Structures are given as structure tokens and as C-alpha cells.
């Protein structure tokens, strides 16, 4: 009992120290430690990247084409493994993750792609049901969750529409809804506005910001400078596989 009290006092003191220093205790969502990635053809895509993203953050990952942004996304979704270094996502150490654990790790993420990747032959509702069924949700859970998510992305009246009947912006909203529907802790958006005009791009980014404000960690990979500079968020810039800048309220400079 005495030992337990001593432990609690020590823990309280640590929390007070952190709070007084202005820092909050937040879970680490992404941790990249000295990451190197060399592909089989000899291309060195990443050279010693270090990155830490905490729960609830909104981070832009920026850089020109071929800088290594997509490689980072693939590493985070366990599509590929690092040649050297450690990758930790939502508490999963991806260096020694077992194959059967990968689906469970991915369920803590929502992924949004530039080309939407919707199933054309399914309606909006069908696409979301498909994502929920994948993780074993019941019909009752789907009936409860899908209208809520569609309302959140502003597509409450489009449940029965097919993707090819919708605009690019609407299709990306469906993709966002699909990423959100399983209530992930973090969303990774890989060039989410790449196929959209500036107005739709702004709408999508505002929607992502709103989702982040509700507590979902957001990592947005983009090379659209104007859009990044419009939102005052943390910006992580990489070039030629190396991290060149990382700053809060940062700007994307050429």
C-alpha cells in the first residue's frame, strides 16, 4: 500500500511537471526512427527520416514529386517495410509485426487516396457498408453509423447514388466517409485534393480540419503549396528522401 502511494505521488508529480511546462500527455500515433528505404532496383527513397506525430495533431507532409512522401505512406500502412530504422504506428511496431496483425493495425487507420478508389458498382451506402463489413461490423452497427458519417461529410442525401453519378469533390467526400466509418484513430490522406479544382480542394481540406477538430489525428500528404499555406498547421517537408523542415504553423516554401 505504501509503495502504491509512493508510486501515485511520483506519477502526480510528473504530470504536474509536464502540465506546468505547457505540454500535455498525448499518445504517440506515428514514430519514425532513422528510417532508410532502398528499393530492389537500388533507388534510395528515404535517408534517415525521424518523425513523431502525436494523437490529435494535424500534419501536412509536403515535398516535390519523388521526394519520398508515398514511400512514407506505404511504410505507415505496412505495404512495404523499412530497410533500416523503426516504424511505430498506433503502438504497433511495424518492423516485427506479424502478418495476421496487419489488418488489426490498419483498422486503426483510415486511408484516403488521390484517385478516391471507390467501388464503382456499389452505391455510396454500399461502399461504406463494404468497409464496415470488412472489419466485421453487424447490420445494426452499419445502420447506426453510416447515416451519421454521411451527414458529417455533407452527403446525407447521396446514399443511393453511384460514384460515377457524382462530382470529383463528392467522390472524395465518399472516400473520406469510408475512411471515417470505422472510427479510426488516425487518417492518412495521400494527395486527397490532387484530382480536384481549387474550390473543391479547399472544401475537402476544411472537412479534414473539422474531422481533426473532433479528435482524429490527420496526416495529409500533398504538394499543393497554396492550400498548405492557407491552413496554419504543422508542416513536415521532405526532399530527396531527407527531412528538411518540421514546424508548427509552418509554411510550405519552395
Amino acid at each position: 500500500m505504501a509503495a502504491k502511494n509512493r508510486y501515485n505521488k511520483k506519477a502526480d508529480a510528473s504530470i504536474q511537471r509536464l502540465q506546468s511546462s505547457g505540454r500535455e500527455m498525448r499518445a504517440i500515433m506515428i514514430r519514425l526512427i532513422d528510417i532508410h528505404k532502398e528499393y530492389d532496383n537500388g533507388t534510395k527513397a528515404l535517408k534517415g527520416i525521424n518523425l513523431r506525430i502525436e494523437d490529435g495533431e494535424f500534419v501536412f507532409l509536403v515535398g516535390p514529386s519523388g521526394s519520398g512522401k508515398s514511400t512514407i505512406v506505404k511504410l505507415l500502412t505496412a505495404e512495404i517495410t523499412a530497410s533500416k530504422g523503426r516504424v511505430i504506428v498506433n503502438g504497433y511496431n511495424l518492423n516485427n509485426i506479424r502478418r495476421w496483425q496487419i489488418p488489426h493495425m490498419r483498422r486503426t487507420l483510415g486511408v484516403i487516396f488521390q484517385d478516391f478508389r471507390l467501388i464503382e458498382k456499389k452505391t455510396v451506402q454500399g461502399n461504406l457498408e463494404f468497409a464496415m463489413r470488412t472489419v466485421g461490423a453487424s447490420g445494426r452497427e452499419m445502420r447506426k453509423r453510416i447515416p451519421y458519417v454521411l451527414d458529417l461529410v455533407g452527403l446525407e442525401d447521396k446514399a443511393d447514388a453511384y460514384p460515377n453519378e457524382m462530382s470529383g469533390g463528392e467522390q472524395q467526400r465518399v472516400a473520406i466517409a469510408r475512411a471515417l466509418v470505422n472510427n479510426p484513430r488516425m487518417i492518412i490522406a495521400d494527395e486527397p485534393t490532387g484530382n480536384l479544382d481549387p474550390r473543391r480542394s479547399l472544401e475537402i481540406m476544411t472537412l479534414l480540419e473539422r474531422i481533426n477538430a473532433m479528435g482524429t489525428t490527420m496526416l495529409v500528404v500533398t504538394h499543393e503549396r497554396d492550400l498548405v499555406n492557407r491552413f496554419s498547421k504543422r508542416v513536415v517537408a521532405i526532399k530527396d528522401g531527407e527531412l528538411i523542415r518540421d514546424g508548427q504553423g509552418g509554411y510550405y516554401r519552395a
Partner: protein
Amino acid sequence: MRRFNLGYFIKEGFSSIFSHGLMSFAAVCMIVACLIIMGSFSLLAVNVDGMLSQLEEENEFLAYIDESFTPDQVRTLMEKIKQIDNVDPNGVTFITREQAKQDYLKGHETDGLYVNMPDEVLRDRFSIHVIDLEKFTETVEAVCALPGVANHRAENKVAEGFVTVRNAVTALAYVLIAILAAVSLFIISNTTRLAAFSRREEIAIMKMCGATDGFVRWPFIVEGLLLGLMGAAVAFFLQWGVYAAVGKALADSGATALFTLMEFSMIWKRVLAIFLLSGAAIGALGSGFAIRKFLQV
């Protein structure tokens, strides 16, 4: 597998058959072709086996009794023979020399040489029926080793011939069935691979959403299973037709004296069960193998 996923897998399996109609049709055709070829060889083997079994039933040998043996000793000897391994206890018959002469004379009633033959020329004997033809020689030797058996007459060569023919036909049937099963598996696997290729994007989305390999694989396995069952049903009816046609052709050609086909009504249940099991197994396994490559996302 979660309870509410089972219905989904079956629904997806069914809808996939129709959404890839041409591919499904090709897969069913391949299963039908393979099952009919396999079935034809199996039925040939079954018929040859049946015919040989019939001949085996008639297979027996004669053991001649020592003339000095009394009737009591003969009875004791008969009991000893019945106890020998591979001797059918109900197939040991005592034949007196008089009976033997009568049997011998059948067909020679008008021949004076045989009609006037004295009974003493022949010996009392046992007609002994063997159970397993493969142990024919050993059984004959065991019977001859008994005191009181003076001699024997056995067609060892004929028995060995039967065994050789049966083994050859069975081995050939097994080899052909194995080859055709492998070919069917390969074809179904490739057909499913094409179906999976056209849905690779869908599979990638599923995997990115956190689907397990099993969740992705099951609808394909159900699809393969259903295609296999459909192919098996079609193949069964076609096989029935082919079998009836061959039976009719044999009857018309007068070859039934040499080779009579079993009635299909006697074997249809077995054929249907084997076709359904083989079709389902080929379909499900083929699909299971085909999908593996697309799960590496």
C-alpha cells in the same frame, strides 16, 4: 468466421458468378469436361473390377483326399480346411467319386469310353472356394500341407492373371484420375485468378480497410465451390447419358456376352456423391490457390 459474415460470403459468391458470367461459364465447362473424363475412367475401372469379382466368385480349386481316409477322418479334414485363412468356410464342399464321375460325364453322355469308366478311377475330393484371389497360391499350399490331402488341381495362372489385370486397371484409373484432378485444379485456379485480377482493386481496398486474408478469400472460395457443384451436377447427367449410350452400343453389337455394364441405377448415388465432392473440392481449392497472389497487399 463471424455469424453475420457467412450470409455475406454466400451472397458475394453468388453475385460474383453472375457478374463474371463468361468466366463462370468457362469454369463450369472445364469442370464438366474433367469430371466426365475422370468419371468415364472410374466407371470403366468399376465395371472391370465388378466383372473380375464375379469371376473370382467362381474361382475354386480341388483337393483330392487320400483313399485310405475313413469318413470320420474326412470330416475332421474338412473342418481343418475350413479353418485355414482365406478359405471361405461356406465354400468347402465334399464331392464323392460318384458325384465327380457324374459331373465329368456331363457333355460326354454318348461317349462309350467315358460312360463305362469305373468309379475307382476318380478320388473323393473337396471343392474349395477362396476369398481373396491375391492369396490364392498360399491358400492352395496351406491346404496341400494338411495330412490326408493327396493331390490338388488349381489354376494358379488364371488366378494370377485376374489379379494382374485388376491391379493394372485400378492403377491406370488412379493415375488418370490424379492427372485429370491436377489439370482441373490448374484450370479452375487460372479461371479464378482472372476473376481475382479483374477485382484486384476491390481486394486492395478491402485490405486497406483492414480485411483479413480469410475475409477476402472466403467469397472466392464460395464462388469456386458453387461453380464446382454446378459443374458436377451437369457432368453427372451427361455421364449418365454417355453410360447409357455405351451400354446400348454394347448390347446392339452383341458384346454383352463378353462384357456387361452394371446398371446405372445400382451406382448412381455413388457417382453423384463422388462428382459433387470432387467438383466442390476442385472449385474451392482452385479458388483458394488462385487468390493467394492478390492478398499480398
